[in-house]
């Protein structure tokens, strides 16, 4: 075996192995992406839907603007001032049609509240409603907004978080908003990027979680020190604190985070809550930038962090999204966390945390199956949402991405990777960061629309169904904007336009929607679970008070049914614990359900 033939054979095998990455790449790219351009008929026939960007036709011409922070950050301003485009869906006037609230982040810039005019168009009424002029110099700028009826008067109230002073606006019967921040007892300054409404203690009143990003003692317009950057790329703990505001019921909130077990200074970018263990209490998932994710089990009275124990909080990445979806129709939620992947530099891969077979309750464990399911590589990923885009009965996944799109031909990645590998003493000081000088950092990225085949595989059909934009995407929200029984997609882009992708779905596929209203439970029904049983399968969804990245989907729950028009039953578990069963709800209808008393 030591002769020349063995050596030649060895050399051939060696060359084969060396070039094998190229073969694997070619094979993978052939399988992963449908590359055809939009052909509506073909898209309908092949994928069951297509998306058209209709913002201008719908009367929406909103462009997000970034803030201008302390001049000492000028050299890296595009990457520091890189968030703030958010979108939340709300029926603020209770007319049965979803409206859209979007934020801008320029000092003095105006946020917009687009009222649905029921004719395919929207009208910005933020100014007259009193929720536009919220970025006044000295008060910080908007980062995200979430809606919830904190006083159970039947109208959704608005919490606006900022790099600055958070604001709470009471909805006055859909006719205007009153600022109630001071009465509520919110802190004077939080540099936050994520917040959500949820009733953690099941008392029928919506409580509030806010996750800080930069430390709350940092005023980004007047820096006391340039040592305000993360002290590590993957282990940072010098971020903003977390807040849990318990709703006391009289328009006042009490901050109870430390008392109830939430103590973290990781850099939170996204959060979402859902009952992962069937306890009746919403558990809290926090995706952190520069570190591990956190999962807080909630027993209704206190929280305990189980990230490492459950598997979701061990390997540190750059968490930028948290959304739940029952993607295998098993009655259990997967959690999707977006991270960073850049060819040749950093391959974190997004996480699809699936509950492990045979684990539940306190012993619940997750495993990352993003690669197996085909939803791992998404560029510099930001917001993502699960929703049945083609009404085939399985949840699909829409992911937006792209960090800083400036000069197409010059990349900042080399300098970014250089500093990211440095010690905390270097990385935490903004003055040590090389100047961006107009270079892009994971810019102009193609988006991903992953279609779920129902058996554990997602195929990217973004280009084929009409999602061709390359803006720096941040927030994604799904809603049936025109009550047609399909999920439309609204995308907020950093320094870019708000996009509205109108969905057209093959009429063969049926659907059913549930608009819930609590009576004993919180009136927004946030935390209510609906399980739809049809055709021998089931799918569970939960009304959310904020999910994804800087986003909130419509509260109404949308289920695709495929070609089966017969729904066996829908079981509603209200946040207060009551079970309500709707037998044979009609398909292709919006069912408005009030919690039975």
């Amino acid at each position: 075996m030591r002769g020349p033939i063995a050596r030649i054979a060895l050399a051939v095998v060696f060359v084969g192995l060396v070039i094998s990455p190229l073969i694997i790449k070619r094979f993978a790219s052939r399988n992963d992406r449908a590359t055809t351009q939009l052909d509506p008929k073909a898209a309908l026939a092949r994928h069951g839907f297509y998306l058209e960007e209709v913002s201008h036709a719908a009367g929406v011409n909103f462009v997000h603007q970034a803030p201008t922070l302390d001049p000492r950050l000028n050299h890296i301003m595009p990457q520091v001032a890189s968030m703030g485009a958010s979108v939340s869906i709300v029926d603020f006037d209770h007319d049965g049609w979803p409206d859209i609230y979007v934020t801008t982040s320029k000092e003095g810039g105006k946020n917009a509240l687009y009222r649905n005019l029921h004719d395919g168009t929207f009208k910005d009424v933020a100014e007259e409603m009193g929720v536009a002029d919220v970025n006044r110099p000295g008060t910080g700028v908007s980062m995200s907004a979430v809606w919830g009826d904190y006083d159970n008067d039947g109208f959704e109230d608005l919490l606006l978080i900022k790099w600055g002073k958070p604001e709470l606006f009471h909805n006055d019967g859909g006719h205007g908003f009153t600022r109630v921040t001071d009465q509520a007892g919110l802190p004077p300054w939080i540099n936050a990027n994520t917040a959500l409404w949820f009733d953690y203690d099941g008392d029928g009143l919506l409580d509030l979680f806010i996750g800080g990003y930069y430390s709350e003692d940092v005023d980004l317009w007047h820096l006391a020190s340039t040592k305000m950057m993360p002290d590590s790329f993957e282990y940072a703990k010098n971020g903003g604190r977390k807040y849990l505001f318990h709703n006391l019921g009289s328009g006042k909130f009490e901050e109870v985070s430390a008392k109830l077990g939430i103590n973290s200074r990781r850099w939170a970018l996204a959060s979402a809550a859902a009952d992962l263990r069937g306890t009746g209490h919403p558990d809290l998932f926090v995706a952190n930038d520069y570190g591990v994710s956190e999962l807080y089990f909630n027993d209704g009275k206190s929280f305990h962090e189980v990230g490492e124990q459950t598997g979701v909080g061990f390997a540190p990445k750059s968490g930028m999204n948290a959304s739940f979806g029952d993607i295998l129709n098993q009655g259990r939620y997967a959690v999707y966390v977006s991270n960073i992947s850049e060819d040749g530099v950093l391959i974190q891969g997004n996480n699809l945390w699936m509950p492990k077979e045979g684990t539940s309750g306190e012993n619940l464990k997750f495993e990352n199956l993003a690669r197996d399911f085909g939803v791992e590589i998404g560029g510099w990923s930001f917001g993502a949402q699960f929703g049945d885009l083609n009404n085939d009965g399985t949840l699909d996944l829409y992911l937006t991405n792209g960090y800083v799109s400036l000069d197409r031909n010059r990349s900042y990645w080399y300098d970014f990777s250089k500093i990211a590998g440095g010690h905390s003493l270097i990385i935490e000081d903004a003055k040590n960061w090389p100047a961006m000088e107009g270079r892009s950092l994971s810019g102009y990225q193609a988006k991903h629309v992953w279609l779920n085949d129902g058996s554990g595989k997602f195929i990217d059909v973004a280009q084929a169904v009409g999602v061709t934009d390359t803006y720096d995407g941040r927030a994604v929200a799904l809603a049936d904007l025109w009550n047609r029984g399909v999920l439309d997609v609204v995308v907020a882009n950093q320094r870019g336009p708000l996009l509205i992708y109108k969905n057209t779905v093959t009429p063969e596929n049926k659907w059913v929607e549930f608009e819930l209203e609590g009576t004993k439970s919180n009136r927004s029904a946030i935390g209510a679970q609906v399980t739809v049983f049809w055709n021998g399968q089931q799918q569970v969804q939960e009304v959310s008070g904020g999910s994804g990245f800087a986003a909130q989907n419509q509260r109404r729950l949308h289920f695709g049914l495929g070609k089966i028009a017969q729904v066996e039953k829908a079981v509603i578990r209200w946040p207060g614990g009551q079970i309500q069963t709707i037998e044979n709800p009609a398909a292709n209808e919006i069912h408005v359900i009030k919690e039975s008393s």
Partner: protein
Amino acid sequence: MSQQSIAVTTHASEPFRWKRFFSPENRYLAPAFITCILIVGHLSFGILESYKKTGVAIAASLLAELILGGILSGKWPNLASAYISGISVGILVRSPAFWPYAICAVVSIMSKYVLRLKGRHIWNPSNFGISVLLFLAPETVATLSIQWGNYLLPMVVIWVLGSIIIWRVRRFHITGTYVVCFLVFAILRSYLTGSPWQSEVAPLTGPMYQLFIFFMITDPKTTVRSKFWQCVVVSFVALAEMILRLSQVVYAPFYALFLVGPAALLIEMWFDSRRTAPVRVAA
């Protein structure tokens, strides 16, 4: 990362002695050190992608060494070198997939047996494997490019321990020369590019460089023989790295060693062949 070529002397019946453990004759010193780095780094900060992936890299490396060593030399090879290569791949390669760990480890080991000249392999095995993978599969593979933890202590411990070990195995001059050159070139780069000097020095404070300077550039099998020329060659590695860095090549150190290391060996072999060439006598 290969292994000391010095023969092993066994002292099975004698009590454990620190001096002997930290001696150049102990070919298990480097494997022990890198294992410590792996364990401490992972238990403290979770540096590994996963145990399984690192396991795949080590197993693939050992298996390749066993098979190739058995086939080509007809005897069971010592696995210390393959273990270091495997564990290095396990630490340095970052990929969500499993296959890069296996392929990188096997390519690393195979390079020792295939890319040989006059009985010597000319590339550092894991440098070869990692460079090839980074070049050909950038969409799937990156390397460890972040720090471990926020604390100075782990870094200081690794630097001190690494320096002691490298000094004991008589290769500290290589590491020391490289570090000095890197710092000088970092200041020069800062001057040329206008970047803060801290950002140019920053990579040296990360774990990737700690592995690179203690294990990769000091590999006896793929460095030239004389102490002086070792220092010269490693200076050229640092110089090549600077040039690559000025061209914004993210993995400049790996590519620099990939280019300079074999070139230096080839030149040394050429000089050797001239020295030993038979003298022609004119007829």
